[in-house]
């Protein structure tokens, strides 16, 4: 089938699913999951078909698939919406459709499909469980999510946004998908809207990313002003346009940037918001309030990847200005390190992963900042697989713990706190082994896992291109990553059960464990397509397919590092193994009621990182406060009501005063003398008019209007000459 047509079709099934579920099947859980999962499956098949066709074409980057239609007419010409699949998009399509399908399937089990309705469950709150009678005794089982159908409608809409973003051939359509996802992110973080924390988190996520979005919008506007188009191919594959952008100074001479530099910077701020980079990272950890499949899909595998995807996509422009790239390197490296330190001291199983996501996205941004285009794209792909795996795994763990909570009936036990777990490897073997694979991939366990190859490539590029500061910062971050992963693995699955609930945990249903197993397959193999050829012994066994294929996206095919340097390789092996072992050593034997062993040696620093460097408090103190101050006391009460209305009222009073003066000094003595004379005439006239007069002002006005229009008709009919 014609690939152009296929690409158009990819985003549509989930959108249709959204419509069908909202309008027709929202009362039936069974129908809604079939529609939802079915739509994801169709998109996956379509995506795979396109992907297979794409990889079968030599030098695919030079003649990608694409087509477009006009959408929004403007001053000159019009904006089009269109689709484009080039090597980068093809790879994106593959991992996005796959993870999305996995997460859709997983959601069926996660929301307790097939279980009875809860005893006291209500919409907007997570299900609490249902009591089932078994002969003479009863026990509590998980209950089905009360808004089951709605969930599938929302994630369908979300998937539509993500697919649109991936296949779009221009920044405008990309932005459309971007915003749809932002909206769905809001809806899904706040899915359990009866929880105030979920509502706040949803609002925070939406507002924070929106700050990034508006700057991105400006970047788009600027780009359009400079080039007259937003189409990727016309800008990014056109050396002439790129040269002009690099040569022109930025509007206002801002920071000595070139036009390309400022455009790049503005677009990058969009990424800072969407991909939760410092200083707009604060929303992502709170976003964990949403159901776990949402965390996995939106806040790990797809939406936050979209931010990085956008800068990867726009890389040819970003690369035109050193300062923009430098900014990205600094922000990315700083974020990678900062988030990794915070992750070390979190106890919530999902929050650790949330900070780890921020940190890993920082790796990608830093990689782009040092010009390592392929490495950034590579890490984007591998990270999506293993992070989706980890999140789904954590969801499975939480589910297992909730089983335990239902069993003991002690609802005070937080099923997400890792210090309440322990020993789960025996109770949940599949979850354990897959989580182990995901954790190893995240830590960069040498040679086998996908995370190793992509992270190593970033480090090797940083070293090879002499960005030593970035290299060491990222290396430390990688060490911390391995450490907190070891900590998480040990606290969750290692040792003995620390609570009654953990003892009664339970492996999840097949619809949850199958996606875990499939994703763990990719968490290992996805790295093998990009093994550098210069690596000793195994280099060259498999061709470095990823480099050749994705490299074709760029006008100038990026060159692989010319020589092999052992230092980065040794570093990444040491930090991965060292961090994991350290985590194992420190946390292998935590007993119930034990404190975090790090608390004592770290002292005050522990509190500092546990409280996330106090960013939330700082932002609340400054921005929220300032906005409140500006809106109510200053703008409204002072400016609007006091200054503007005040002067108006002052004028009105003076006018009244003037009126009084006229009345007393002029009207009374002078005019009235004459007026009394006229008055007697009016009096007589009034006797006649009494019949017309009803005392209602509005009727007078209508009479006046009627007379006016009567006159108009008269002229139309008799005087005018049409």
């Amino acid at each position, binding site marked *: 089938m014609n690939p152009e047509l296929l690409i158009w079709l990819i985003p549509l099934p989930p959108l249709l699913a959204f419509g069908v579920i909202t309008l027709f099947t929202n009362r039936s859980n069974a129908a809604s999951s079939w529609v939802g999962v079915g739509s994801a499956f169709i998109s996956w098949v379509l995506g795979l078909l396109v992907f297979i066709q794409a990889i079968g074409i030599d030098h695919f980057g030079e003649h990608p698939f694409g087509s477009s239609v006009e959408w929004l007419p403007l001053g000159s010409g019009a904006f089009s919406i269109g689709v484009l699949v080039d090597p980068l998009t093809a790879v994106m399509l593959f991992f996005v459709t796959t993870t999305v399908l996995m997460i859709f399937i997983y959601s069926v089990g996660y929301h307790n499909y097939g279980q009875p309705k809860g005893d006291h469950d209500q919409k907007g709150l997570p299900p609490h469980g249902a009591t089932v009678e078994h002969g003479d005794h009863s026990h509590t089982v998980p209950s089905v999510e009360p808004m089951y159908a709605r969930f599938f409608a929302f994630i369908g809409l979300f998937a539509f946004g993500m697919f649109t973003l991936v296949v779009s051939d221009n920044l405008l359509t990309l932005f459309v998908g971007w915003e749809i996802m932002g909206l769905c992110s809001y809806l899904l973080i706040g899915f359990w809207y009866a929880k105030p924390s979920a509502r706040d988190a949803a609002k925070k996520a939406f507002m924070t990313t929106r700050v990034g979005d508006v700057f991105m919008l400006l970047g788009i506007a600027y780009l359009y002003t400079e080039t007259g188009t937003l189409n990727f191919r016309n800008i990014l594959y056109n050396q002439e346009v790129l040269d002009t952008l690099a040569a022109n100074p930025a509007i206002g001479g801002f920071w000595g940037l070139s036009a390309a530099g400022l455009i790049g910077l503005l677009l990058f701020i969009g990424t800072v918001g969407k991909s939760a980079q410092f200083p707009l990272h604060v929303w992502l950890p709170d976003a964990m309030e949403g159901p776990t499949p949402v965390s996995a899909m939106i806040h790990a595998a797809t939406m936050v990847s979209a931010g990085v995807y956008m800068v990867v996509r726009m890389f040819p422009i970003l690369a035109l200005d050193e300062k923009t790239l430098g900014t990205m390197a600094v922000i990315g490296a700083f974020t990678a390190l900062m988030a990794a330190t915070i992750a070390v001291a979190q106890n919530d199983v999902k929050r650790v992963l949330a900070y780890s996501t921020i940190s890993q996205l920082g790796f990608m941004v830093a990689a782009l900042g040092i010009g390592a285009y392929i490495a950034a794209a590579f890490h984007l792909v591998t990270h999506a697989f293993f992070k989706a795996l980890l999140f789904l795994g954590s969801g499975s763990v939480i589910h297992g713990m909730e089983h335990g909570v239902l069993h003991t009936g002690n609802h005070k036990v937080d099923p997400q706190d890792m210090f309440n777990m322990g020993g789960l490897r025996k109770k949940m073997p599949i979850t354990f082994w897959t989580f182990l694979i995901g954790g190893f991939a995240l830590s960069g366990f040498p040679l086998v896992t996908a995370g190793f190859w992509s992270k190593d490539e970033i480090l090797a590029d940083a070293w090879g291109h002499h960005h030593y500061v970035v290299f060491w910062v990222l290396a430390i971050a990688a060490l911390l990553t391995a450490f907190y992963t070891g900590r998480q693995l040990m606290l969750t699955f290692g040792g003995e059960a620390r609570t009654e609930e953990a003892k009664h945990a339970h492996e999840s249903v097949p619809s949850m464990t199958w996606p875990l197993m499939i994703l763990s397959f990719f968490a290992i193999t996805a790295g093998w397509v990009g093994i550098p050829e210069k690596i000793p012994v195994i280099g060259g066994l498999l061709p470095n397919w990823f480099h050749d294929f994705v490299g074709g996206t760029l006008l100038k095919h990026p060159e692989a590092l010319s020589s092999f340097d052992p230092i980065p390789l040794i570093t990444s092996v040491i930090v991965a193994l060292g961090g994991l072992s350290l985590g194992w050593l420190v946390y292998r034997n935590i007993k119930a009621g034990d404190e975090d062993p790090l608390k004592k040696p770290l002292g005050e620093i522990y509190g500092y990182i546990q409280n996330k460097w106090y960013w939330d408090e700082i932002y609340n103190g400054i921005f929220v406060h300032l906005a409140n101050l500006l809106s109510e006391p200053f703008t409204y009460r002072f400016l*609007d009501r006091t200054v503007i209305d005040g002067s108006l009222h002052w004028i009105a009073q003076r006018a009244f005063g003037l009126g009084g003066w006229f009345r007393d000094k002029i009207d009374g003595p002078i005019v009235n003398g004459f007026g009394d004379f006229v008055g007697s005439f009016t009096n007589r006239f009034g006797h006649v008019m009494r019949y017309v007069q009803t005392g209602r002002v509005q009727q007078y006005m209508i009479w006046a209007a009627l007379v006016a*229009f009567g006159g108009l008709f008269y002229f139309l009919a008799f005087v005018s000459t049409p």
Partner: protein
Amino acid sequence: MGLNVFAEEIPYLLIITLLPIVAGALLLALPNRHKLIYNVALGVATVTLLLTVLVFLGFDINGDQYQFADEYTWLPQFGISLKFAVDGISTPLVLLTGIVMFTGVIISQRIDDRPREFFAFMFILASGVFGVFVSLDLFMLFFFYEIAVFPMYLLIAIWGWKETREYAAMKLTLYLFIGSVVALIGALAMYFTSGLNTFDMVDLAAANFSTEFQNLWFPFVFLGFAVLGGIWPFHNWSPDGHVAAPTAVSMFHAGVLMKLGAFAALRVGIMLLPEGAHTHMWWVILLALVNVVYGAFIAMRQNDFKYVIGFSSVSHMGLVVMGFATLNQNGFIGASVQMFSHGVMTALFFAVVGMVYDQAHTRQIPELGGVGKYMKIPTLAFIIGGLVSMGMPGFSGFVAEFPIFMGVWQAYPWIAIVAVISIVLTASYIIRIVSKVFFGETPAEIADHLHDVTRSEKLALGVLAFFLVGLGVFPGMMVPMFAEGVRQIAPLIGLGGF
């Protein structure tokens, strides 16, 4: 059938303009029975809407600049004639008026205090609005402009919110009349200086006024009309007026009347005095910037639901003026689309506010909550309106705001940077309302009063939402018309290219 609805000889614009006012007069002759009055009013509004749809569909984008033209000499000795025509910019606005009139009548079904007079005034108002949009004669434009403004006073003062209606009605009337007098002086100056002895705006546009003349008079004409567009610091009549007015009047007021100001400022101010516009626009855009940010800031912290929407109108109308002030095609197209989009959106907002207030008897946001459980369709409609107002892609707000920001960036990048703050602020106050009013717990005091709205009210909301979503998903239904209209006036005004 052989009947050609687009036949040249049918004077559509004349009918559209006069039908409401004639119907209004007839209404007064009817017995004051509520149901009868409402049905007749609804019938008239439906016919008017259909006629405006016909004009919209019949407008040929590839045809002349002015279409459906009609001319009747009136006072030839002063060069006044009744000259009607629509161009690409005004055609959708005529449709907008038809939409708001139709939905406004439906929303007013429960008006039980003197419904006959209420609908009669509303129709007079509608006639005035139609007249301004279709007049090509400066004098007639003023004539209809005043007809549109004067019923406002009575509609607010008689049927308005008891607490503030007299104050608000007086404030509004004073502002608008003073504004129009200021503009009128400018218009008379043009008439006498041109020496053409005509009020025909097409002729006046070709009158070649001297630069000094244009620089002197542009501020008068532009600001005089822009008062009705809610320009800062002359905006204060509008939130007060919106809040005090009955629902349908708020819809008309914010939905259409404010567009009248912006439209007249464009047609009389910018189109007749383009050089003056070029000289003065730098400070106009600053005023508009204040509008945009200032209105949004205030809206963020209002406790009265209706005031939030009132100040959001101040903010969004600032975007319209800002778009025009860019003096480039993107800005103009965006501003025109924004006029339509904001008109429909704000009519929808006020309709929902009215429904909530009718039932809950309070508009204080802290006293409301969980309304969505009882009123599903109004909640959905409000959310759609909210998404429009946030500039979410897929809704008409984005189609309007994107070109505006594009245009502003071309003309004054720094202003664009400040103005985008408003997008964030808008999201903040919309989310606040949606979460506090429509979701959450329902306070016991209002829970007993809340119930679903009637089917016809749902229809009205559906009509409004249809245009917001339709235009957002498929801008091709209207934007090419605006774009063509702008392209045709571009050489006249000297608009910058893309």
